[in-house]
């Protein structure tokens, strides 16, 4: 029978300092729950309290509706395993001996390990890819290997609940994925309940079914990653601006940092209109916004990457229906934004019949005396799908004084030089 873990009005203190207060939550059977929150928000304290080592100052932790702290440590250890952030072992036990310690709660005081225990340890070593390390001393393997061994030890307990405190924070990206995939597999195949404290919001978003966001010792919010991981919530709890995107493959929320510290004084109050679309301008839009420019964009087809970027940056844009040509109406709106801008930048977009009007708009910008910067990541000949018309208009732009820049960085440099 699967085991349930609940906290009811939980409060924990270190000495006189209240660290957790009024936490109520139920870790559903077979769920994969991530605990996230800034440093000092009480994530690890919550995990310690769940793992029967920090007696609550108030409220209760219930394992199968029984008070966790009234149960014997051994009873708990048969159902629940814990993987700490880091484990230092000073004595040269072999990897196999360490993993075998996971059988400890299942053995009687005078009972030695049986064939069955050795068979189980073997199976766990296969699962965690530690078989080849079996005879090596725990003191002579790498940090990543050691963490896999500690996870293996936890699995040898045959737990129905596994608690992990930032189990991958000291590991390379490949080992992180390896361990988390393993946990995911156990969660799916053996229906183990997994509770992980995460530092990395992306990993949390990728792997968890539900998230518990902590703030100052309280639960700020709980729910599915899509609901919890929003730019607003993160701004509120972490005090940091981020962009949330859908992961292109998994569809899970992915968190991207904005390097707000990079703001440029020269950008203050300067309005830049970016002519882009299809994704050619996304990076440029983000960087310009980051540096503090007042950015507008057009003409963007609804739903494409540039459009999503502009929307998440809350930029003023001219929109067009997906895969549609630029209409007379949106062309006018585009020109309106150009008129209001100090500088006009054109991203390295491909041209077809549908968006050739963009080139005409930029030529007008030059005619109005606006500085025009062209980002040229690819030669115009290679992105002309109009049969030569785009090349002609582009060359006209250059002749009239548009400045060619190779990439977004060059554009930013040039912009900072403009008065």
């Amino acid at each position: 029978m699967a085991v349930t873990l609940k906290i009811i009005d939980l409060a924990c203190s270190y000495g006189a300092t209240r660290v957790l207060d009024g936490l109520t939550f139920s870790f559903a059977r077979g769920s994969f729950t991530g605990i996230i929150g800034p440093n000092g928000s009480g994530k690890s304290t919550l995990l310690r309290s769940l793992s029967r080592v920090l007696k609550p100052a108030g409220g209760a932790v219930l394992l199968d509706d029984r008070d966790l702290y009234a149960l014997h440590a051994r009873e708990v250890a048969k159902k629940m395993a814990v993987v700490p952030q880091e484990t230092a072992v000073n004595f040269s036990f072999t990897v196999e001996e360490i993993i075998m310690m996971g059988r400890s709660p299942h053995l009687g005081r005078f009972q030695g390990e049986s064939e069955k225990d050795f068979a189980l340890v073997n199976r766990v070593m296969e699962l965690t890819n530690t078989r080849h390390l079996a005879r090596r001393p725990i003191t002579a393997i790498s940090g990543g290997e050691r963490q896999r061994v500690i996870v293996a030890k936890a699995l040898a307990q045959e737990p129905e609940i596994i608690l992990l405190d930032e189990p991958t924070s000291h590991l390379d990206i490949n080992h992180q994925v390896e361990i988390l995939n393993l946990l995911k597999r156990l969660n799916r195949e053996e229906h183990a309940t997994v509770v992980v404290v995460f530092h990395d919001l992306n990993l949390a978003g990728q792997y968890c079914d539900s998230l518990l966001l902590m703030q100052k010792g309280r639960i700020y919010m709980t729910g599915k990653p899509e609901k919890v991981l929003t730019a607003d919530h993160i701004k509120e709890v972490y005090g940091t601006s981020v962009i949330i995107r859908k992961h292109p493959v998994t569809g899970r929320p992915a968190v991207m940092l904005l390097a707000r510290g990079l703001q440029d004084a020269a950008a203050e109050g300067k309005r830049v209109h970016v002519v882009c679309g299809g994704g050619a301008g996304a990076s440029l839009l983000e960087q310009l916004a980051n540096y503090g420019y007042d950015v507008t964009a057009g003409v963007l087809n609804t739903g494409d990457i540039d459009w999503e970027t502009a929307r998440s940056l809350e930029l003023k844009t001219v929109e067009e229906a997906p895969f549609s040509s630029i209409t007379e109406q949106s062309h006018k709106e585009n020109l309106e934004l150009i008129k209001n801008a100090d500088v006009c930048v054109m991203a390295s977009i491909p041209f077809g019949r549908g968006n050739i009007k963009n080139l005409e708009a930029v030529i007008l910008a030059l005619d109005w005396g606006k500085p025009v910067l062209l980002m040229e990541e690819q030669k115009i000949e290679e992105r002309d799908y109009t049969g030569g018309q785009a090349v002609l208009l582009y060359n006209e732009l250059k002749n009239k004084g548009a400045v060619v820049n190779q990439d977004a960085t060059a554009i930013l440099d040039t912009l900072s030089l403009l008065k």
Partner: protein
Amino acid sequence: MDPQGRVWRWRAINSALLLVLGVIVILCTTIGPAPISPGDVLLMLLRKAPVLGSCIPRGDWPDSFETIVLQMRLARVCLAVLVGAGLAASGVVLQGLLQNPMGDPYILGISSGAALGATAAMLFGLGASALGIYTIPVFAFLGAAVTAVLVYGLARVGNRAPMSTLLLAGIAAGSFLSALTSYAMITSGENIHQVIFWLMGGLAGRGWDYVLVLLPYSVVSFTLMCVFARHLNVMLLGEEPAQHLGIDVERLKQIMLGAATLAAASAVAVSGVIGFVGLIIPHAVRLLVGPDHRVLLPASILTGAIFLVAADALARVAAAPEEIPVGVITALCGGPFFIYLLRKKGSAGF
């Protein structure tokens, strides 16, 4: 390793050590002014065995030899066996509990407490009439036991006694008590020689009565340690991880500290402060058999016994007819060996 193979390996190791201990006990019993051969010693011992003993013919040795061997030399050798075993066992347990290979039976102030107790008994002749020859052992044991309980009490925070705090409390109490002992010594004058000799540790002139007094303590403490050997392994992962594996850490610590204190305090009480056995033997044996306490404990008990029997023999013959305190021998062997281990292992862990 398959479970059967491992058990056989452990049995083989302990059988071999037991055999070595037997041989060394007999060899060291032959050492002394009266020339008695190992064969004769063996025969004398076998004749004492129940049932079988009566079938064994008596050799042509004088009666006095039998008294020398059975009443004097063998008692002393057996006492060395128990003291060496007790110190080594206590060292293993404390190194395990502290998760620190620097652990030592004396680290919790046991030796300083025993020294103060013994010094008080010797200098002020406390209770001499009532306790007779046991005055010094009783006072030493009380000093050691009271110190250990005190240190545990000092280290306690709430209902937990973190090992790091315990270590520091032990060091502080040790220094304090040593200072008291030194003060008592310089103010006493004439008995100071006796005190110094006791402090260096020795087994000279101890008979079967000492062995019989020590034996129950050894049996109780060794049994407790061996029963919880597997749990002690898990403690090496750290206190919280051990708790996660279902171990009642505070209770285990109390039981094991109690057993280690009992073993060390009783050994110190009969022999004085013999250093380095409790530090070196667990290290050396760990190198040989690995860190698993289920084999490390019995193997260390046997090796500690072997080492102290040999060291005591050396103490008797090295400057004959004078005797060197055996504590001097153990420190002379132990110091360089420890440095050798440090150089060899570096910081790679133990």
